[in-house]
């Protein structure tokens, strides 16, 4: 690859890690590893020094791990937050609508001071999220959750904003021969999502911020299957209802009348689905052959494609459309041959992607089948059993840890629940030409490995009710 000399110089000199996001992929992936590591270390040190006193949970973790300063990348490995940290509050806070305590819990995970915030008037999770939207810099992203417990990531408006949103360019743009230098004109592209228009799930927040920072008030269509808000309360309540039904504990559920009223609303929405799909397809038919942005999950797209096929819709969008297909077929098995159905409908194949809502980075498989996470994210591999960080040499397999250098108001370090192989070795660089470590496509979730076969014991079955919550999770996307 033709390494861009001026970028290399800039990288070693004035560019900080966070500003890597402003480079083009060809610039970004041509920076020598040593320079990247230098930038990463400098960024990590800065983040730690600034946040250790400001994020109480980080302070406690650092003090328990007896870490006072960072001098090597690996020093931060014990400081990676386990991925469940953003749902580490007791579920009863939601059940009892105790948003004061929920806020106090969230206060421990952000550099913003929420201690003076009076949330006592919030009656629902949606109220609380909107209250934070209105009164603070925090734009909580919540997960689809299981058993009704949602995770709440305290990302800030600043972190969603203009410069940071550019990580999405890197998601869509190709490198070198991939020939997908297509983000030009992004500000005029209609957005299509086979999901909800509004809400605080990662995808809905993304739509909100693309509209704000890419479209910038221009009248560009945003077409959603559900033109409504994905309610965090409905999602949480649905999960709790199903979990309680599975456990025979329905009678013990604590539900406020306000939440019960919302269940009806939610059920009504699911009944309207048929009509919504037709309205959605009507709107999309008008965009046939155009270049668009598509945001969604494989399962959502598939349903969309099947409904479209029934109306004879095929090869719908321009080949240079920007398509993000997240989550694989998370939580549901798709019919045999789903990819062909889907790709015929969309008009082009979509490469698998890897990312997570906890980090502001994401990547599609390169033409050689590997994933290259942008280097403002530091990669760690941790040994599954010993918890020790694995050396950054050769090819290693372990539990993936990431440190996202973009956020400055919450801690960017996470230990994921994914097992993956990474090649660190400079000499074994990926044939796509990108410099730097890369992830192989052998991703596995640890939960699938543990208890995946026919283990029988007489002690508790934690998965007993998991099947039941799928319906709601699918809706949530």
């Amino acid at each position, binding site marked *: 690859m033709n390494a861009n000399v001026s970028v290399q110089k800039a990288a070693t000199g004035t560019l900080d890690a966070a500003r890597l996001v402003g480079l083009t992929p060809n610039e970004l992936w041509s920076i020598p590893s040593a320079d990247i590591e230098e930038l990463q270390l400098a960024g990590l040190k800065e983040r730690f020094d600034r946040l250790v006193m400001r994020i109480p*949970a*980080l302070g*406690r*973790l650092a003090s*328990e791990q007896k870490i006072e300063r960072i001098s090597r990348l690996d020093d931060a490995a014990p400081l990676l*937050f*386990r*991925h*469940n*940290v953003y749902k*580490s*509050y*007791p*579920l*009863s806070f939601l059940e009892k609508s105790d948003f004061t*305590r929920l806020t*106090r*819990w969230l206060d*421990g*995970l952000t550099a913003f001071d929420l201690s003076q915030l009076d949330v006592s008037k919030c009656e629902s999770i949606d109220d609380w999220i909107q209250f934070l939207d209105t009164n603070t810099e925090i734009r909580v992203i919540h997960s689809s959750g299981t*058993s009704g*417990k949602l995770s709440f990531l305290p990302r800030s408006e600043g972190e969603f904003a203009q410069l940071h949103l550019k990580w999405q360019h890197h998601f869509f743009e190709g490198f070198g021969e991939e020939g997908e230098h297509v983000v030009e004109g992004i500000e005029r592209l209609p957005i299509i999502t086979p999901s909800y228009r509004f809400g605080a799930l990662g995808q809905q927040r993304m739509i909100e911020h693309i509209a704000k920072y890419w479209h910038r008030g221009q009248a560009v269509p945003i077409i959603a299957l559900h033109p409504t808000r994905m309610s965090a309360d409905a999602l949480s309540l649905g999960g709790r209802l199903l979990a309680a039904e599975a*456990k*025979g*504990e329905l009678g*013990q559920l604590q539900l406020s009348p306000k939440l019960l009223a919302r269940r009806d609303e939610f059920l009504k929405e699911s009944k309207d689905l048929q009509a919504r799909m037709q309205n959605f397809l009507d709107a999309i038919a008008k965009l046939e052959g155009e270049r668009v942005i598509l945001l969604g999950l494989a399962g959502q797209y598939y349903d969309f494609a099947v409904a479209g096929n029934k109306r004879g819709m095929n090869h719908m969008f321009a080949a240079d459309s920007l398509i993000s297909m997240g989550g694989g077929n998370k939580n549901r098995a798709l019919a045999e041959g789903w990819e062909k159905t889907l790709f015929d409908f969309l008009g082009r194949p979509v490469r698998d992607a890897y990312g997570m809502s906890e980090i502001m980075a994401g990547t599609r498989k390169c033409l050689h089948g590997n994933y290259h996470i942008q280097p403002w994210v530091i990669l760690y591999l941790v040994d*599954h*059993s010993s*918890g020790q960080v694995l050396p950054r040499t050769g090819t290693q397999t372990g539990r993936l840890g990431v440190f996202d250098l973009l956020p400055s108001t919450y801690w960017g370090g996470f*230990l994921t*629940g994914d097992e993956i192989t990474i090649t660190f070795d400079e000499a074994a660089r990926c044939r796509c030409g990108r410099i730097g470590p890369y992830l192989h496509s052998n991703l596995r979730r*640890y*939960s699938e490995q*543990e208890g995946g*076969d*026919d*283990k*029988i*014991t*007489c*002690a*508790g*079955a*934690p*998965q*007993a009710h998991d099947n039941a919550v799928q319906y709601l999770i699918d809706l949530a996307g």
Partner: protein
Amino acid sequence: MAGYRVPLIIRGKIMEGPEVTFGGRGGSAEFTTPDVKLHLGKLALATPSALADLYGQSFEQILDFLAALGEKLSFKRNTYLQEAFELSRHTSGLGDEILRHHYETLHTFFDRTMLREMVDRTLGIPYLEGWVGSRLAGGGSAAIRAFGARAVHIVAGNVPGVSAISIARNAVTRSDAIVKSPSNDPLTAAAIARTMVDMAPDHPTTRHLAVAYWKGGDQEVESTLYQPRNIEKIIAWGGLASITHIAKYIQPGIDLITLDPKLSSTIIGREAFSSDVVMREVAERLANDVGVFNQEACVNARVVYIETGTHAQGLAKANRFGAMLYEAIQSLPSHTSGPAKSLHRELADEVETLKFAGDSHQVVGGGVKGGVIISQIEEPVDFSRLLANRFANIVPVDSLETPIRAVNAYTQTIGIYPESLKVEVRDRLAFHGAQRIVSLGFAARPVLAGPQDAIEPLRRMCRWIMDETCDPADVLMPSRTTAES
């Protein structure tokens, strides 16, 4: 890791034939076993009448046989058991020393006194030995006898004793068993069966036991085997997944007896916190309920409700008690309890996170040594069902109503302190779903002479047959009754 061979044993014969390979727990052990699909025709007892040979043996003769078997199950001398132990070291969740202790004491399941007590308490020996008659209030008499049945036992593998007790129950009820070994303990049942074959290959008790491994849910095996022409009962230990497979085959003629996964808890009244001395003593008793079997069994305590109150002073007491419990767990002798062989990732993530995020919990310990989570609010952690490897969750409460209401159908054992509290709350605990109530510290003590999970498996394993006797001179025949009521 290879080289283990799990035999297929059918009614006194060690079967030979093409073998198939299976992976053990966590991919750490592999074993081969003759392909059971090629022997399906012989696996089930052809007709129920073939049980008749068991009736040539008196109950006492069966006990003689089992007691002799117990003697042969000396871990020091029995190479089959030693081999089962070696394989289990790779497949079991228990540490070596504890596992060895289980194998060294496995023979106790065949103890004559204990078996006689078990049968007499739950079935009544006379019902096994003959027809027990009684006069009926409406005239005539009825005699009842408990007969054996043809059953498949899908056994749990968390402790080897499950295989042993299943074989003993089969023998004393004069039943015919096909034991399906679990992947986390593939050899124990086979080791006992081989010992029986060596000892007396033609003994009726040996001839009514088959031990096989197939992957649970294998449709080819299960759809052939689970037919009313082959079996009358399925005794299934295990969770939702395993029961869901089996439920497909349930039809009239097949009785499903489930010994499903349960969780156990503890209730400790305020008396325990009257002094430091009492607190320590109670912590030691509780450590037994939490730590024995390394918390691998359903009887182990997980959530512990303590009546300290949730005011600042109460929380301080709870936290101090948590530290004492942790210490007591660490002091348990190494043949009964020890550090975990491997960390349960999901549980470790939850516990490690609680250490620094939020202020609703305190954590003592962590990692492979186990730990104690002390809730600072009046409720258990959301992940309480994951608690294992010697992790307990102490929940301070203002009123004992909280733990009583928390009991449900998934609750098996509740350890209680003091005794007076046990008597006071036991009826209410039973209404809510609790199945076994026991003095604190004795939850892990095996007592077989009674119900299990609120049913009596031994009674359910039998077919209860009635013989009614009526003399037309004493009892009116239906045709001779008048229309007038």
